[in-house]
């Protein structure tokens, strides 16, 4: 690696330097000025974003050990940094001002993890990146408020997270054993050419899927979500709904890339069942929640289910313009990240006495005391519901169109159509609990006036999220074409040949696409 090649990693470098600088700044006198550290972390984030946009889409020629830059890198970079800016906005104030430096630098580190996940071209780097996402989040949960519940949530999150890390490491080990290399492209070559040991590769895939299921909170690894969301403060919960989930899905895309998106019946039905269960369990349990944050935790589980549908469709199963599941997934991830953040921003902009807003009834009559905030919260809720005219609706259009875009003659067409119907019915179930919150805000009489939380940052985040949801509905083109560009190489280049010999293939692979296509793109 030459020194010049580092220039390709400018956004990542800015984040590393900025995060370290914040750690140092946190103990100096400058930190005592309120908002000083938050503003500087905003600056770091914005600088990284500017570097990302300035560099544009990497052409993939940079020689970096363990990293390969692609269209996906670009998409993940700008989206993470943009949502990251909003997250810093929400986390403007911390429970303990003395910990502010650590807190904000951890926030930057976890974002760095997501960025690296997207570029990792080696399983070791991939594992490292996923852990870089996870470890700071454990600490952030603990730091988020001075409350025994936060500590409990952090410990719970940490132990289960460690378990999932073990699963992930074990699975990646199996993949290494099967292919004989830690490089993702070499693995793809080995698996594509049939040189890999198919049994080991399959076990590896399943373990990796299990480990990453924890990150995206998919059934049966979802159980921690409700407790952790409830325990952590709302601004951190907003982060938990986006950062680990995004990293998990990006990692899943990269792993399925290695397998050339070949879906053997076993793998297909496993992901199918996971998606169906995740949607259904999330929504049904969401129905009976009285705590808003628990409810949103289950909603986040359900949304993972919708995104798993897109992952299942992938870039290769369907046909036609709406068939690329990865595009749909990337689009939905962006929309979900923002609308979910909006909902938590609303919760963090009000206090009930000393406490956070927790129960659904706490929001009673919000429309009368705070009509603007109630309207913005309503937009975010209807977007989560998948209701027009919000971007959440378009996200569902893309995901479920993808599921229907599988030809009737395809072996999985029926399965995917059923999954799409399960998905839309789930949206109707989900509507019931989102609607309850909306009804409480608008219909119920005011019980106890909610005090606005100090500072405008929560309000600002909420407003930005709500406006973004409407704007993305009216004009989705920009985001959509970015998502398409990010997922195109997945569609056209990285298709491994001859996977059928592995018994992993449910489709006929076009023989003119060679494994070399993948290598050329990623190296």
């Amino acid at each position, binding site marked *: 690696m030459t020194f010049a090649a580092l220039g390709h990693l400018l956004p990542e470098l800015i984040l590393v330097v900025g995060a370290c600088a914040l750690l140092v700044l946190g103990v100096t006198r400058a930190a005592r000025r309120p908002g000083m550290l938050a503003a500087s972390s905003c600056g770091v984030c914005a600088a990284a974003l500017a570097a990302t946009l300035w560099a544009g889409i990497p052409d993939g020629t940079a020689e970096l050990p363990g990293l390969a830059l692609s269209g996906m890198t670009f998409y993940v970079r700008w989206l993470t940094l943009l949502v990251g800016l909003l997250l810093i906005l929400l986390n403007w104030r911390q429970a303990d001002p003395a910990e502010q430096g650590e807190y904000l630098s951890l926030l930057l580190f976890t974002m760095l993890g997501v960025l690296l996940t997207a570029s990792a071209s080696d399983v070791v780097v991939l594992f490292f990146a996923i852990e870089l996402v996870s470890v700071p989040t454990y600490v952030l949960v603990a730091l988020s408020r001075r409350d025994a519940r936060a500590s409990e949530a952090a410990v719970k999150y940490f132990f289960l997270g460690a378990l999932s890390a073990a699963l992930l490491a074990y699975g990646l080990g199996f993949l290494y054993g099967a292919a004989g290399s830690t490089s993702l492209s070499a693995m793809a070559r080995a698996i594509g050419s049939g040189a890999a040991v198919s049994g080991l590769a399959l076990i590896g895939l399943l373990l990796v899927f299990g480990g990453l299921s924890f990150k995206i909170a998919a059934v049966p690894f979802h159980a921690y979500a409700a407790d952790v969301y409830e325990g952590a403060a709302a601004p951190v919960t907003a982060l938990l709904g986006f950062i680990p989930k995004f990293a998990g899905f990006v990692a899943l895309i990269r792993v399925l890339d290695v397998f050339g998106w070949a879906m053997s019946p076993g793998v297909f039905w496993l992901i199918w069942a996971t998606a169906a269960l995740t949607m259904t369990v999330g929504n049904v349990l969401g129905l009976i929640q009285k705590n808003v944050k628990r409810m949103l935790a289950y909603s986040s589980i359900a949304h993972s289910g919708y995104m798993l549908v897109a992952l299942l469709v992938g870039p290769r199963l369907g046909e036609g313009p709406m068939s690329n599941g990865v595009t749909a997934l990337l689009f939905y991830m962006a929309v979900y990240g923002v609308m979910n953040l909006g909902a938590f921003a609303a919760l963090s902009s009000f206090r009930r006495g000393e406490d956070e807003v927790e129960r659904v009834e706490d929001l009673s009559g919000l429309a009368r005391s705070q009509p603007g905030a109630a309207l913005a919260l309503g937009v975010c809720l209807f977007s989560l519901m998948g*209701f027009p005219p919000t971007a959440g609706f378009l996200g569902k*259009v893309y995901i479920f169109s993808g599921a229907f875009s599988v030809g*009737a003659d395809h072996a999985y067409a029926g399965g995917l159509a059923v999954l799409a119907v399960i998905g839309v019915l789930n949206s109707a179930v989900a509507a019931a609990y989102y609607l309850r919150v909306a009804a409480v805000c608008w*219909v119920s009489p005011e019980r106890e006036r909610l005090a606005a939380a100090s500072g405008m940052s929560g309000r600002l985040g909420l407003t930005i999220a709500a406006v973004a949801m409407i704007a993305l509905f009216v004009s989705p083109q920009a985001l959509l074409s970015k998502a*398409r560009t990010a997922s195109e190489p997945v569609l056209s280049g990285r298709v491994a040949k001859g996977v059928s010999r592995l018994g992993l293939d449910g489709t006929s692979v076009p023989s003119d696409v060679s494994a070399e296509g993948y290598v050329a793109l990623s190296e």
Partner: protein
Amino acid sequence: MSSWILTLVIFAPLAGVAALALMRGENKRAIERVALGTSLAAFVLAGAAAVLFFQDEPRGGFGLKATYAWLEGGAAEDALSGGRGPIGGVDVAYRVGVDGISLWLLLLTAFLTPLAIASSFSAIQERVREYYILMLLLETAMLGVFCALDLLLFYIFFEFTLVPLFFLIGIWGGSERRRASVKFFLYTLAGSMITFAGVLYTAYYAYRSGAGAFTLNLEELMRLSRAGAFPAGVQGWIFLSFAAGFAIKVPLFPLHTWLPLAHTEAPTAGSVILAGVLLKLGTYGFCRLSLPLLPEASRAFAPALAVLAIIGIVYTALAAWVQTDVKKLVAYSSVSHLGFCMLGLFSMKLAGMNGAVMYMINHGLSTGALFLVIGCLYERYHTREFAKLGGLARRMPVMAFFLIVFTLSSIGLPGLNGFIGEFLVLLGTATSGSTMDGLAPGPLGFPYAAVAATGIILGAVYMLYMCGRVLFGPLVEPVQAGGVGHGERDEHGDSSGHGGHHDDGHGGGDLTRREVAILAPIAVLCLILGVYPKPMLASIQAAAEANVFSVDDRRQAEGGAAPGGWRAAQGNAEFGMQNAELTCHRAEDPRGPVVFLAPHSACLLPSSGVSGALRAGRAASVASTGGAQ
């Protein structure tokens, strides 16, 4: 102008929403004026649209069309696909346009909304600004549904109607408003989510069967459907998914249970809009999407739907009879009436179709008006119980007059509008098996009409019974009107609107001038449509032929190439394309019994002399020999 007008109509109420949101202070009068003014402006614009439509367009087709790109894939995606076809070919756009069917429903919506808004002036005392914002949002959504020529756009507006109505019922409704609004929302949402899946599948199938793009353009889909792109099995699935959403909306027995509750709990204006327009979204969906896009499946499922419709007609008529609440009685009568609409649509005859669309308009007028009258009663007495009301004709003669007029219109007295629709629906149903109108035999028949007709008798029974109880006999008025209502209303701590503040002390003054001004236009329209329905029927029929039964695709293929080639003859009186004037040419298409109608040359004359006449002759001959191709 003509391409902008529909967009203006649809979004005119949003201008009012913006104005209301930005207004300072809580000046009730000003807010009401802005809301009423905006909705009246929308009505004027809709009227202008109607004038432009009849000036501009060849009859039958969609007029006033406009398209703005929305979800279209750009060139960048095409480049990436490497010449493998339009990978970015997503053709989902903002497309609007109206034909002779949707235009009337558009006008109905624009007509009823200002009346509903004006009727709320005294009833709504709380959270006034929010109320009118929601009413105007609802109007935009309803207008949008009737103008949409893209399935996704249709769906978006269709779905969005739920949100404002949810809050209208939930905030300003009766004592059970929470339950009613949630049930209404979830019930209809559950159905329409399945419709959503069907819409997406339709788009994919259109792509697959040669549209070249993931398209939801209604006209393109109609063209594909005529070309036989949708096989029967696929049609069946799509039909069922559409029906899931539309049947709940209509509502069709046994999915109607949300309706009486929503109606009884809704504020008066909400009931007027709900009965007047929102229920029609279901029948309109069947008529706009299911029948033209899925003709074979419609034919196959028609008997089942008709049986459900008939059960609904009779069952809900009986249910209406035993109600003790006036509003609930009218709510049940709505279900019964909409059953007739369904019957007319699925008779798959021109007469039935004409009748069904006419019925939608009539029902919107007369039932909407009935809810308005009941609202007036309720504001005075705070009760709708039969037991507490009686002999009011003496106390309120003007109210009695209107109630009787709308009741008679509702039960289909000849000379008023209800009769025409009812008659045509039953005619269409009874003669469904025949080929009188040149269409292939429909799936229904005389027995269906015979059973359904009992619903008319029952309708007359319960409606007149209601009139008799409320208007005649010994005078019964609730004691201390006002106090009772306030008590039950405020049990949740927030008074929800119907305050009855304008009470004049002794409970029942007759209708005020404002109320008369609201009801009189509807009564006049009922009379006009009852005496002279011809223009409306003519345009409905032309639209039904072109866009529902696709009888004239050959005619358009031939003549449509030259714009204006199929102008109505100027001298021909009032759009006079009637059944009798049509020469029927039957032609068997290889795919199945598709029938073409060609107009008699006396009825339609090309606008431009000899070449046009030649074209007409050629069209007729193509139509008659069309099967050979």
